[in-house]
């Protein structure tokens, strides 16, 4: 997995549970406390060991840890730039869901060897979708669950989400959009408040 993915897990553990807990996970998984290099590519087994160690140290099922990671990626101030990139998916939550298939390609545009799950969206009926999620990382669909849930809050949409399990190696998520403007949601402008060119 790309160093950015491992780094995301590291930052999630550090920001949510504190530096001490992250160090314990790192030690249990057999890594140094320095953490991951965002530019490097690591073997998949490294990410698996990291997540397994996190599940043990946090005493929570791995799937729950992964879902919390997905929520963190959208909602924590540390990773605000990521939330912004996700909001480029569309003006409403429905548009966002409809743009999900483009997400892996857009991500690779920025980071060519990033391992974003391959996503395939099928419309079951009006505003009801099944999202196929295929990744070498076991349980990546749970990260998508947390991410989709947090994005619904971000847009102020009311949605029902359900993990349907895996079929032929593809995890399937049920997405029902009940209301696109249920709550106020968080503000988003295409233009960022601080220009990245100017160094913000």
């Amino acid at each position, binding site marked *: 997995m790309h160093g950015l993915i491992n780094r995301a897990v590291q930052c999630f553990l550090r920001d949510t549970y504190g530096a001490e807990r992250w160090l314990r996970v790192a030690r249990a998984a057999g890594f140094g406390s320095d953490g991951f290099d965002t530019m490097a590519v690591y073997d998949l087994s490294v990410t698996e060991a990291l997540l397994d160690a996190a599940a043990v140290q946090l005493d929570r099922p791995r799937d729950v840890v992964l879902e919390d990671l997905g929520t963190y990626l959208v909602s924590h101030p540390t990773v605000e730039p990521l939330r912004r990139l996700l909001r480029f998916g569309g003006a409403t939550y429905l548009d966002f869901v409809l743009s999900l298939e*483009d997400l892996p390609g857009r991500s690779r545009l920025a980071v060519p060897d990033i391992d974003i799950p391959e996503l395939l969206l099928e419309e079951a009926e009006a505003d009801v979708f099944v999202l196929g999620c295929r990744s070498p990382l076991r349980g990546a669909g749970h990260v998508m669950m947390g991410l989709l849930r947090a994005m619904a809050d971000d847009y102020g949409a009311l949605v029902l989400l359900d993990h349907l399990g895996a079929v032929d190696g593809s995890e399937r998520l049920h997405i029902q959009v009940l209301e696109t403007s249920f709550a106020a949601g968080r503000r988003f402008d295409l233009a960022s408040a601080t220009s990245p060119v100017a160094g913000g």
Partner: protein
Amino acid sequence: MPSKPPKPQVVALQLHAKSLDAFMPMFLVVDMGGRITAAGKTIAKLFAAAPLIGKSLFAVFDLRRVGPIRTMAAVAARAGQPLTLTRCDGGGALRGLAMPMADGQGFLFNLSFGIGVIDAVRQFGLTDADFAATDLAIEMLYVVEAKTAVMGELGRLNHSLKGAKSAAEARAMTDTLTGLGNRRALDMALADVIAKGGRFAMLHLDLDFFKAVNDTLGHAAGDHVLCAAAATLREATRGHDLITRVGGDEFVILLTRPPDKPGMLRIANRIIAGLEVPIPWEGQVCRISGSIGIVVSSDYAAVQEAAMQADADAALYASKRAGRGQATFAAVRPDGRPDGRPDGISAADVGDAGLGVDGTAQGTVVAMPRAG
């Protein structure tokens, strides 16, 4: 009362194909039967080997918008929405938009490479003439290329900084004379092994008669002897043992996967035997030996670094007291806590005076009886 806004005028545009080409070089005109009747110059370039005109749209592309689109009626239902058109010949996917034409005779499609533009430019040898002047594709290529260059540069910088950092760390943890680890290396390794909670052992070694070598033959000889001792320690231990020089002639060997106690004694024995091999120096011979104190984490109910180091130290001086050139396990009290001062021996009682350069030492290894 505000007046009603004027009804927008419906303008039916008639464009020459050449004009359309300038605006949208990847346009397609598809009739209501799904047949392609006109194509822009750039999309035509992509299909140069099998021209598009006259073909069925659905034979050339798989159309999708959250599920497949297989009829012109389905196209009409998705008018104005972003579509994905995947080439049936395996040539990749395009993004598209379809709107009905004013005469009701078909649909006008405008296609783009979307995020596939980078690959497409390479694959089809496209130039800026293949894009409309208002298209941001060239800017996009520029940004991606600039980003790649900057990221590459940052990656290289990161790599060299990492190299410099680990070299500095290694230097900070290395004894420059012998190349062994130093006190800091030992402290870090100890903290790590204690945190991991496995069994480990420490051999605390103090060279015997080293002071005599230093005093009679000088510091250069002393340094030579220390390096020879380091070589002996490397030979007598296993690859995963950590050997550190923690003081002038004091060494600590951390066994992270220790054998049983007889096995540890064998290692100590090898060390002492190795140290007692005479070391030639400028026509003379230096003779040293070593006294060792051994402490094992499994002898402790709760492992405490400071207590273990103190007990190892005390066991070392018990070895000195008993005549040098031997190893002693830290004694264990009936309450389970080791105490290396069985006879009230303290470091102050045991000096390193005595034998000269040619001094001899006993090579016996004594294990202190364990009370626990």
